[in-house]
């Protein structure tokens, strides 16, 4: 981050190569729109690069910090959309659009993403913050402006629905994942 603060573009590229996959996946899961997810990824790096001079090593893991920036940017976008529409955005029925973009690293991941995309927005966001971003229940409830009880209810309903959708195909998904791991190098 010190190199980035000094304008070292190569250091900026290194950070991007390390974190882009994570950051982009957050946008895809939370926004379900590949174009918006890319915009959020770009905004995340711009913010991180600009904040580089103030970065304090040891306070948080760099990737975790980047992920939190991305998650917050996604929440801001969703909040603005809700305010603009004054009603929740329509939920996709089957998550097909999210899966069809073909940008998740492997076939199993695309199917899991489709299942996540099929969740109602609040359940999806609760899952994102608590499962993928490791927010505590109190932090996540504050972010979503709901009570801890409501958050836990959303989380339980979301995960149960995913269990119903994904567990019957778990063997197939895991074998697809193993094949992908054997045939391609890791993204990160």
């Amino acid at each position, binding site marked *: 981050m010190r190199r980035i603060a000094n304008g070292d573009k190569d250091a900026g590229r290194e950070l991007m190569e390390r974190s882009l*996959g994570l950051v982009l996946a957050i946008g895809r899961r939370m926004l379900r729109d590949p174009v918006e997810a890319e915009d959020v990824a770009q905004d995340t790096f711009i913010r991180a690069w600009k904040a580089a001079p103030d970065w304090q090593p040891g306070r948080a893991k760099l990737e975790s910090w980047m992920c939190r920036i991305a998650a917050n940017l996604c929440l801001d976008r969703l909040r603005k959309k809700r305010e603009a529409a004054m009603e929740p955005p329509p939920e996709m029925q089957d998550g097909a659009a999210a899966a069809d973009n073909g940008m*998740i690293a492997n076939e199993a991941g695309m199917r899991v993403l489709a299942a996540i995309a099929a969740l109602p927005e609040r359940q999806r966001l609760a899952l994102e913050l608590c499962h993928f971003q490791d927010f*505590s229940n109190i932090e996540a409830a504050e972010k979503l402006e709901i009570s801890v009880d409501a958050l836990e209810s959303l989380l339980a309903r979301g995960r149960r629905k995913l269990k119903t959708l994904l567990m019957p195909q778990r063997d197939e998904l895991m074998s697809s994942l193993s094949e992908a791991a054997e045939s391609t190098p890791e993204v990160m």
Partner: protein
Amino acid sequence: MDRKQFEDLADMWGGHLSHWPDSVREEADAFLHREPSALAILSEASELDNLLSTALLADGGELLEHRIMRSFPKPAFDADWRRPAMAAAAALVIGLAGGYAGGGFVPVQAGDATSLDYADAFDGLTEDWSSWEWSDA
């Protein structure tokens, strides 16, 4: 804690007790040690965790990488600005000193009236133009 509560918590927080809220972790750990079926509940929740982790990464492709790198901020001011500034100042001082010292070696040209002739060429500027009309053009 009973089995139903433990299952609900596993549904919410997954198969790793370390991810569960602090307020319930100790009690859950005690339940795990006294109730044999608790391990199966955690194991099933962990399987879902593993499946979800397959959607952890996305591949943006080169175009997105180029687009992002185009946003890399140009340094507004060279962080190490002192070095070029000092070099410029030193060059200026040496140039001025050299010019001043070298001026003493240039002989003065007696009768050189170039500057006066040049000034004479613009004497017309001192005329009174207040009565000038377009028709004079």
